[in-house]
């Protein structure tokens, strides 16, 4: 039940793009086409979950016991950068097909603030799933990270669908490109606001 709450909350109520404003750059940048958008979402999903696993472990078994929390930001971003590189190398060797699909997005993910954002959030923010405010344990963190990235994918795919239509419509000159995209995201965010308060 608790995991279910985390999943609903992370995908709909606190959607990472539409409510938390994380990962906007790639969201606007690569959502022109449905195919690239879904490729990017899959890559992000993979990296966010893996990065959260590794940074959670590092935080609890290295930084906290040795009182090195002040190195959190620097350690996390290094881990994420290294992880992205490793994933790229491994993927190239193990699954060239997947690498073909995700390859071009991987380097971009290091500076996708969604990854660092989720990694920092799960070790610092108190959640109230299941009644009491507490920091997430490893299992909850992973579910949260995975569900969050699903929410990212959902927002991305919906938005790419909208943009494919936008590209064909007659938009006033000053609105062309990013401005009209932002206005559409605003309306999408308005729709997602309907979910607020659904999960406490």
């Amino acid at each position: 039940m608790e995991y279910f709450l985390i999943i609903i909350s992370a995908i709909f109520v606190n959607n990472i793009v539409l409510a938390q404003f994380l990962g906007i750059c790639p969201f606007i940048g690569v959502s022109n086409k449905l195919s690239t958008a879904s490729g990017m979402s899959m890559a992000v999903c993979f990296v966010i979950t893996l990065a959260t696993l590794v940074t959670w472990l590092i935080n609890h078994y290295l930084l906290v016991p040795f009182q090195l929390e002040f190195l959190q930001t620097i350690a996390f971003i290094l881990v994420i950068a290294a992880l992205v590189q490793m994933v790229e190398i491994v993927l190239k060797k193990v699954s060239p097909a997947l690498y073909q699909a995700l390859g071009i997005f991987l380097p971009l993910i290091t500076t996708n603030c969604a990854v660092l954002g989720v990694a920092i959030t799960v070790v610092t923010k108190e959640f109230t799933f299941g009644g009491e405010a507490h920091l997430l344990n490893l299992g909850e963190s992973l579910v949260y990270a995975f569900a969050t990235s699903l929410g990212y994918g959902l927002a991305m795919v919906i938005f790419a669908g909208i943009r494919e239509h936008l590209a064909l419509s007659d938009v006033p000159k000053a609105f062309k490109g990013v401005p009209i995209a932002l206005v559409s995201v605003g309306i999408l965010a308005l729709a997602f606001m309907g979910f607020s308060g659904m999960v406490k």
Partner: protein
Amino acid sequence: MAAKSNLVNMVLVLGTTCLLCSGILAGAYALTKEPIDAAAAEKTARSIGEVLPHFTETSYESVEVDGKTYNYYKAVDGDRLVGYAVESTVVGFGGPLSLIVGITPDGVVYNTSVLSHSETPGLGAKCSTDEKFIGQWKGFNPAEKKLSVRKDGGDVDAITASTITSRAYTLAVENAVAAVKAIGGDVNAHTGASVKPMEEASNE
């Protein structure tokens, strides 16, 4: 422009940068630790000062009620007990809602203050700004008034359009009152007497 890469200079440069930066941060951490702690201490002192009458000293203690631990500050003025500032966290509309609730030894709420919340801006977030809502907690006596919102048959005026936040706030106060009851008893016996008459006088 950038130097040519080989294994030696790559490892050397990256390693040195990491070491140097960690060193700088460790130094900066040591230097800023004192002001950071001071800022945090000042914030706590300020919030206790908001919810309790004048005091000279506090001690940080905790009490367990129904399996839940509550941390509180016991405030004294000289050797007279002034009251308790109880930290109480509940689930709000958007996430945790943390209050500090000041309760005098006679069990009356002196004042409340929001420590942190993640309520909706303009709606639930008013629990820390709406004067009418905050004001009603000053001198709220749980022995005379019912601790639940009017919609549920109590005596608490809810924030317009934010019943869930108001309920959560009320619950947090209720928990704090229960915590003080659990601390209560023997403490009241030897210090409460000097405080109680004064409070009653001011209430009338």
